[in-house]
């Protein structure tokens, strides 16, 4: 919260767009601002009405360097924008640095994301130290079509203005904590010696030489990848990682997404009845890749680039009682299967589960 807990005394607020950046179509700027306002009106009783030619509560403008508010902008990058807490005059106003590369997608700086953050200040919120929060101080891109206001921000704004008038209260994503015993994973893969754990729009990155686990948005490294990756595996020989979501897959070559992706999973030999892949790992010794869907598994020959015959087979027939698999990866000859908060260490030679651990056992908790 902002010191002194400033808040608007009314719920029906007005806004005005004083000028436009030449870097975007006006219609796209209008749309970004409307979407940013709805981020907050969707979770509170607040409403926003656009006015054209008079003083509004929230005046939105693009400005250069010193623009007479004692807080000059600093040119491209660095400080992208700022806004003032609720109040008369300049209170509530949003200023955007005209020298930034404003866009409506993942290039440059996404105007919707930045304005939504600044409007949080206009309504009385200060910065949050939750790295997944919209009110976190540093910029990070999220596809506007996938944007959901995180729970941290919902809690903050509702503490000021109360809950939404909707019968069903909106909720938002929570930022994963590496040592949360209830943490489960969407997918896991190795990547050049590191381990990458996918969870929603986040990836937890574990480098063997660092004790702490790094949390990042998937979009930080791969803006073109969607959130909610469902399966992933590394083909060490080809220095590739394959990532799956629904009926599509992407290939990372090194650290970059290879051109021409996503492609349908059916190119790998899955029948149309398969709609998604839950987990996958590549067996370095045999060069075979194992895919897990529902209670069955498939085997793909990386050299022949085709699915082996006689599949799918029941998971239990080869891997024992591990049930359905959320995520899997192979390390030092063992295969690690994750289901919910449980992890099984499987020895493919003896075909036995040799250990059962917590899902977060890799994070030095």
């Amino acid at each position, binding site marked *: 919260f902002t010191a002194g807990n400033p808040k608007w005394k009314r719920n029906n607020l007005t806004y005005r767009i004083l000028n436009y950046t030449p870097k975007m179509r006006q219609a796209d700027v209008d749309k970004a601002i409307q979407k940013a306002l709805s981020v907050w009106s969707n979770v509170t009783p607040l409403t926003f009405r656009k006015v054209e030619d008079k003083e509004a509560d929230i005046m939105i403008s693009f400005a250069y360097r010193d623009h007479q508010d004692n807080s000059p*902008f600093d040119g491209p990058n660095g400080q*992208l924008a700022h*806004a*003032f*807490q609720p109040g008369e005059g300049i209170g509530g106003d949003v200023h955007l640095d005209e020298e930034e590369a404003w866009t409506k997608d993942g290039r440059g700086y996404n105007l919707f994301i930045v304005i939504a953050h600044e409007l949080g200040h206009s309504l009385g919120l*200060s910065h949050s*130290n939750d790295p997944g929060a919209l009110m976190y101080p540093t910029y990070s891109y999220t596809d506007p079509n996938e944007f959901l206001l995180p729970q941290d921000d919902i809690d903050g704004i509702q503490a000021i203005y109360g809950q939404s008038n909707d019968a069903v209260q909106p909720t938002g994503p929570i930022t994963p904590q590496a040592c949360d015993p209830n943490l489960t994973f969407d997918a896991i893969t190795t990547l050049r010696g590191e381990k990458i754990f996918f969870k929603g729009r986040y990836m937890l990155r574990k480098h063997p030489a660092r004790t702490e686990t790094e949390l990042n948005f998937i979009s930080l490294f791969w803006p073109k990848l969607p959130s909610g990756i469902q399966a992933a595996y590394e083909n060490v020989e080809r220095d590739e990682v394959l990532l799956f979501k629904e009926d599509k897959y992407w290939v990372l070559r090194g650290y970059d997404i290879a051109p021409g992706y996503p492609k349908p999973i059916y190119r790998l030999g899955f029948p149309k009845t398969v709609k998604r892949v839950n987990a996958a790992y590549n067996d370095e010794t045999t060069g075979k890749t194992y895919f897990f869907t529902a209670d069955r598994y498939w085997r793909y020959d990386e050299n022949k680039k085709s699915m082996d015959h006689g599949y799918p087979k029941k998971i239990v027939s080869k891997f024992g009682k591990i049930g359905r698999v959320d995520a899997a990866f192979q390390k030092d000859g063992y295969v690690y299967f994750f289901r919910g908060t449980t992890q099984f260490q499987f020895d493919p030679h003896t075909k036995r589960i040799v250990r059962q651990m917590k899902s977060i056992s890799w994070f030095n908790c």
Partner: protein
Amino acid sequence: FPVAPEEAEDEGKTLQLVENYLQNFYNLQKDHQPHLRNKDENPLAAKLKEMQAFFGLEVTGKPDLDTLEIMKKPRCGIPDIGQYV
């Protein structure tokens, strides 16, 4: 060994980056004396610790690599602590 000139320049740039960042976002007073050893902790180191705690970094009071990486990230112009009027 004496620091090589460009290292000294880098160090100067780093200090400038750190000071600007802490003045802009952590209320570091412009007239602080970062190089005077007074009985209290160096105000710059104290503010640096505050910034490192906010971002969940290891609190060292020193401008280590992780800290500088965060300071170079594009961000909102509002301070992370204190009043912005």
